[in-house]
């Protein structure tokens, strides 16, 4: 007198599809030994190229990778970008690169799996994409093409593992390194861009002025007198000696109101205008000094590499 068994149907089919997706992507997910704790995950992104979460690669040498077939091989670090929490390793292996899915039209509600290999076996968690937003910047200034928030558990060792849709195609890379509170994924578009730069140059170049600023409210009278439309300026509170801004003659206390003809009202406006394309370019800074408006030309330098983890 068993309770009636439901006929194997849609639910069983979905269950199979999910397990198939994990098995499929699992052929391209590796375990990375580059820290003292349990291994982290990595994804074979191209021939011999493994993408990892930068914060899980705590040493530059003596890195090994356990492949899906169980073999362990040595890996070399080709480059790291702390600002997007990505690193690229090179291995000699015929493990197939993941199949990619277009993430440009990703929407909230997509059924997804987070897959990892924090040991010999591939492991998974299930959830949905809970929110998709526009471009954003990480704490360290890295540009991420889309904000992808997940409703799923990112387990220990999952950072660097793929975000997979039913069918086994990869939407991005999961990492816990960009937010303490949220489960976030780096969209494949961003991974492509950063991996391209890391493979080519070993690093991601970023424009750099060598100054620190703080927003200040501009007095009404000064705004009227100088014909300024913005209410906020950025006062220079620190200057790197010999840095691009210092060499261009900027002084502590100067208030920046515009960059290349565009108004700036928030420190992130400056970061946003200093992409990786800007290095070596001359930009024009509009500033207020001693109550007078003036312009200064600054040559954008390259941010010195940090050993950020």
């Amino acid at each position, binding site marked *: 007198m068993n309770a009636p*068994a439901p006929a194997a*149907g*849609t639910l069983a089919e*979905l269950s199979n599809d999910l397990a198939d997706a994990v098995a499929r992507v699992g052929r391209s997910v590796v375990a990375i030994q580059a820290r003292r704790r349990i291994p982290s995950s990595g994804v074979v992104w191209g021939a011999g190229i493994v993408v990892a979460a930068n914060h899980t690669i705590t040493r530059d040498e003596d890195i090994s990778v356990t492949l899906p077939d169980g073999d362990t091989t040595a890996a070399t670090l080709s480059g790291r970008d702390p600002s997007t929490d990505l690193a690229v390793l090179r291995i000699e292996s015929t493990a197939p690169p993941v199949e990619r899915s277009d993430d440009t039209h990703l929407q909230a509600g997509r059924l997804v799996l987070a897959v990892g290999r924090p040991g010999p*076996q591939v492991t998974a968690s299930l959830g949905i994409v809970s929110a998709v937003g526009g471009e954003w910047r990480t704490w360290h200034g890295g540009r991420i093409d889309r904000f992808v928030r997940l409703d799923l558990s990112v387990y220990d060792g999952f950072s660097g593992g793929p975000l997979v849709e039913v069918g086994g195609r990869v939407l991005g890379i999961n990492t816990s390194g960009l937010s303490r509170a949220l489960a976030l994924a780096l969209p494949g578009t961003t991974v492509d861009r950063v991996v391209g730069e890391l493979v080519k140059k070993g690093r991601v170049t970023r424009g750099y002025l060598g100054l620190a600023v703080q927003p200040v409210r501009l007095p009404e009278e000064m705004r009227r007198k100088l014909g300024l439309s913005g209410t906020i300026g950025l006062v220079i509170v620190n200057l790197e000696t010999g840095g691009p801004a210092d060499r261009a003659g900027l002084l502590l206390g100067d208030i920046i109101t515009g960059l290349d003809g565009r108004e700036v009202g928030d420190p992130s406006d400056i970061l946003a205008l200093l992409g990786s394309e800007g290095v070596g370019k001359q930009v024009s800074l509009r500033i207020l000094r001693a109550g007078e408006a003036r312009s200064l030309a600054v040559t954008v330098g390259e941010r010195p590499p940090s050993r950020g983890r």
Partner: protein
Amino acid sequence: MDGRAALAGSGRLGAELEAVAERLRRITVRLRSGRLGEGAGVIWSHDGLVLSNAHVVHAEPLVIELWDGRRFDAQLRWRDPRHDLAVIAIRCTGLPAAVPGDATALRSGQLVLALGHPFGLGNALSLGVVHQPPADLGRNRWIRADISLAPGNSGGPLANAAGEVIGLNTLVAGGLGHAIPISVVQRLLQQRGERAA
């Protein structure tokens, strides 16, 4: 994809989930042990054999409440603390019993369902996936599941998409549900001379 077909599909999915939930609800009991202990159990035979965790069954009296509200005084047949398994009996026949599934062929990512009484909340269903199948069934290794469990789920069923019981939910560690594979339970039952389900 044709929008209407997709909707019809998701309707079927919902109906199937409800059918599995109902099936699990009927084979899952609420178990009170002593004054405080509370957990879940799985009806294993039509004539009243019930499985649970040893850590749930730690004091007398034992009371089992069925899905339909009937209550029974239960007798502990044996406990195996090393495998955290307890076998209990109630005097009742014609019960719906668990259909054991295959716990030796699990795949990471396949759907699993759990029913239990987390924090005393009766008959709560949760849905998740196999995180990691047992590595070596001979050594009482766990089924690790990405599923939301809490105290009160202990001893309850972990089932596959067909509603077949593949494990007994036993503990939570590292955010993951850990279940004793039903194949291990079956082996232990056999060793003790219990009848097969």
